[in-house]
């Protein structure tokens, strides 16, 4: 096979058996790789009603065809499982170099089954695969684990691992790779922890075969040039990182503030990309084969919050900043570093702290139940301490480790949780930007922006300029972004590549790489196929159209001030058109015709 390695690695931790199987060419052609092929493998093998943290659940790591090639920003891999936070299909995507290395080792996917009797890690060196004792690593941070595993295997090994948060099955624990990159969302780290799997180290030396080397080179160079010439892909993200969005979202009146009570934060500029660049940036950093370099290497010198690491990204800066009413960038960066070191999703972490602060100020969470902390909005020390407590499941942290929905529900007030399908919402107020609300409501992995990033056309003017307050045309844009993103995820590409490249460029690169001719429409349809496959799994897992909604606060409480004053989200009005465009019934179920068109029936 070209592009694909042709082999899938299966490790059963219960029986300590290691097997290999050939990649099914038809599945690879239809589902591409990474998110798509991972979804297909997972859904073919796992009961949708599986308990996410049980040995019966599986955990799949999958690079895509681009992973390890010099396709622009083609260094991604995807983690697929059933999410413990949502009960839905969980897909978490990460950059760095781990995905390419897994591909170089010769694998299109790594399927983890069962549960080890004691902590273990996996050592993969091309065809050699070994389950090793990790008892001495249990309890260690992500950097310490990474260093230890490299010392025990190969100093050049690429390592994905969990921190204490994953071991303790915090429901929004991340899988970290290359120290600072994260498969961050939907609790994939908790699933890894439930299997007693501490880390995976990999070294690969096999080439990725290219069907049409000259055609691939030409398509890649065209894509790289498009990115370099684009104001965002070429210079903007490298100069200021993603955190530059803080100010523009605040000025647009759609920066969720204090657990979405408000949509503007008076001192937002103190935590935005301009302040980050001026005060704590050491240098930009890119992932494998990246021409964008949106990553931030940062250093905080204030002794109280001193840390060195990477980030925060926009989402983390928002969740632990304005959403908690906090404008101390040093404290936010400290908490972000703790998330990296202990292995947490900073979006769900920050949003869960924000929810606790909201409950505290409302008098529902009593001071005696808050471990003696002042959980008022704006307290940076409470944020840092709660980050640690949640990771270690200490005191109130043990309850917050279940996420904001379960925590607020335990106090009788689920309406304080700003979640969809029990996953915390990201950094755009859907009352001020209508299309992104539809993405939140319908995303297969629960509340998420990145799988259908309509902000690009609703706020940023990339590709089109749409009125963020209008609902017109938003369903079709949401569908298009969701399908294209699924295809890019499945290819092993980074969605930031769309800040310069289009579906035609991706299709051209994939065709030359694999030898399978994909038109632009066929490429985007592969994404649509993946989206529907995930939807079918969720429906079988018990989710329904009733789960395609937003928290009541966003549907019924108008924005109080600013450019979006008076607005609520109109998801309920947009949803029927979205279902229709997808070829689904009024209850959100894919029709037979839809499934036949997508070769899913």
């Amino acid at each position: 096979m070209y592009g694909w390695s042709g082999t899938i690695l299966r490790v059963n931790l219960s029986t300590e058996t290691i097997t290999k199987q050939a990649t099914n060419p038809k599945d690879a052609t239809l589902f591409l790789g990474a998110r798509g092929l991972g979804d297909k493998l997972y859904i073919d093998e796992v009961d949708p009603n599986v308990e996410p943290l049980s040995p019966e659940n599986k955990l799949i790591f999958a690079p895509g065809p681009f992973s390890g090639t010099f396709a622009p920003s083609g260094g991604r891999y995807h983690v697929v499982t059933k999410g413990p936070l949502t009960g839905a299909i969980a897909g978490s995507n990460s950059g760095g170099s781990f995905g390419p290395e897994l591909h170089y080792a010769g694998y299109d996917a790594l399927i983890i089954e069962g549960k080890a009797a004691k902590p273990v890690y996996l050592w993969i060196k091309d065809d050699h695969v070994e389950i090793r004792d990790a008892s001495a690593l249990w309890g260690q941070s992500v950097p310490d684990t990474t260093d230890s595993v490299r010392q025990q295997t190969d100093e050049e090994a690429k390592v994905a691992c969990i921190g204490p948060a994953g071991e303790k099955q915090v429901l929004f624990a991340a899988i970290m790779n290359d120290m600072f990159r994260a498969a961050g969302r939907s609790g994939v780290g908790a699933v890894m922890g439930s299997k007693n799997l501490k880390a995976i180290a990999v070294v690969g030396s096999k080439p990725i075969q290219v069907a049409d080397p000259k055609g691939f080179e030409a398509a890649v160079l065209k894509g790289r040039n498009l990115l370099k010439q684009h104001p965002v892909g070429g210079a903007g993200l490298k100069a200021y990182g993603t955190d530059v969005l803080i100010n523009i979202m605040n000025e647009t009146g759609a920066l969720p503030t204090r657990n979405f009570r408000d949509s503007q934060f008076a001192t937002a500029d103190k935590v935005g990309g301009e302040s980050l660049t001026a005060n704590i940036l050491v240098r930009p950093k890119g992932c494998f084969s990246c021409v964008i370099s949106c990553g931030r290497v940062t250093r905080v010198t204030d002794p109280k919050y001193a840390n060195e690491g990477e980030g925060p990204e926009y989402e983390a800066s928002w969740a632990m900043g304005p959403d908690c009413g906090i404008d101390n960038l040093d404290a936010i960066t400290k908490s972000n570093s703790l998330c990296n070191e202990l292995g947490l999703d900073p979006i769900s972490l920050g949003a869960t702290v924000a929810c606790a602060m909201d409950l505290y100020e409302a008098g529902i969470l009593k001071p005696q139940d808050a471990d003696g902390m002042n959980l008022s909005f704006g307290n940076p020390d409470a944020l840092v301490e709660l980050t640690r407590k949640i990771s270690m499941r200490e005191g109130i942290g043990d309850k917050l480790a279940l996420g904001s929905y379960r925590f607020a529900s335990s106090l009788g007030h689920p309406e304080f949780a700003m979640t969809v399908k029990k996953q915390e919402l990201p950094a755009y107020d859907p009352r001020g930007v209508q299309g992104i609300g539809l993405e939140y409501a319908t995303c297969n992995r629960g509340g998420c922006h990145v799988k259908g990033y309509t902000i690009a056309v609703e706020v940023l003017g990339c590709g089109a300029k749409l009125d963020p307050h209008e609902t017109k045309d938003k369903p079709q844009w949401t569908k298009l972004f969701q399908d294209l993103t699924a295809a890019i995820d499945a290819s092993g590409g980074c969605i930031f590549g769309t800040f310069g490249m289009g579906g035609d460029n991706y299709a051209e690169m994939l065709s030359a790489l694999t030898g399978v001719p994909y038109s632009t429409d066929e490429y985007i349809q592969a994404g649509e196929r993946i989206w529907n496959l995930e939807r079918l799994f969720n429906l079988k897992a018990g989710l329904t159209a009733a789960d395609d909604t937003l928290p009541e606060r966003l549907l019924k409480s108008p924005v109080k001030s600013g450019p979006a004053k008076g607005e609520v989200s109109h998801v309920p009005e947009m949803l029927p058109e979205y279902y229709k465009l997808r070829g689904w019934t009024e209850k959100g179920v894919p029709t037979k015709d839809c499934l036949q068109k997508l070769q899913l029936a």
Partner: protein
Amino acid sequence: MLVKYFADIRTVTGRGEQQWTKAVPTVRALASELVSEYGAAFEKKVFHEGRLSDSIIILVNGRNVALQNGLETPLSQEDTVVFFPMVAGG
């Protein structure tokens, strides 16, 4: 009128915001005044062949002028005007 600058436009102006007291009826008039103050670097950010550049986002009271009357969008002294380069993230 409050005028704010972000990202690399702030590096051109050397400041994050300023109060603007001179009467300017439209965004074009304000932008032209700012070109006089900050020079060719600012002009390059805002204009492309006399038109509003595709790489600039100008908000008046939080609303993108590209969705209103572009450079002819009217202004009053109570307005807040914001200049961003095209940025993105996620």
